[in-house]
């Protein structure tokens, strides 16, 4: 079965410093991978997606992620954190074995940004 593991439940950074949120996936075939963000009392917003095209994927708000098959990783990065980046981030894999898309979520990483 498809699954993702988010290696850190919390990550704390200072404003202006780089962000790294780690994700490893398990898949029996070429996966589609996503990062979603959830701000407090808000819905789930798609940050970026990998769908077997370029391995370096650029998303919204300056985030990007690199698909590394050899490491089964899809880590999310940003060069410089803003206070507004503080949120919960979910690594997600798409399970399409049945022919219909079902998203399998990781446990989430809470990003804390300090001034």
């Amino acid at each position, binding site marked *: 079965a498809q699954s993702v593991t988010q290696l850190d439940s919390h990550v704390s950074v200072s404003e202006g410093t780089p962000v790294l949120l780690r994700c490893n996936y398990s898949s029996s075939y070429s996966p589609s991978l996503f990062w979603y963000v959830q701000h407090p009392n808000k819905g*789930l917003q798609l940050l970026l997606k990998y769908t077997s095209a370029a391995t370096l994927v650029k998303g919204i708000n300056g985030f990007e992620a690199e698909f590394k098959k050899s490491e089964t990783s899809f880590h999310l990065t940003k060069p410089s954190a803003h206070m507004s980046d503080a949120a919960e981030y979910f690594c997600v894999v798409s399970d399409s074995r049945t022919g219909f898309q079902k998203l399998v979520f*990781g446990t989430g990483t809470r990003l804390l940004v300090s001034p």
Partner: protein
Amino acid sequence: EPEVTQTPSHQVTQMGQEVILRCVPISNHLYFYWYRQILGQKVEFLVSFYNNEISEKSEIFDDQFSVERPDGSNFTLKIRSTKLEDSAMYFCASSEIGQGKGGYTFGSGTRLTVV
């Protein structure tokens, strides 16, 4: 930008009562989904819906749950005889295509509290 709209944002209900959670998907989307997130836990797939029928459901989605698209715009999740453990954030989502490549658009969620 098109949105998925969910109502109500919060619902408190007594154990044993029936609740209906409502969603208005994006108008040209054909695939509809419900997910839930129990506090402190992962976001979990409940059900997907296409062409006026359930395409896939999880083991969570038992006879207590049902979905319906009563008209051309609404998509509802009904929970009969609610239990304390049904307390969660329920997310509706829709997508233009069903298979693999696309991300969903999620609504802001309905927080259901069963007392």
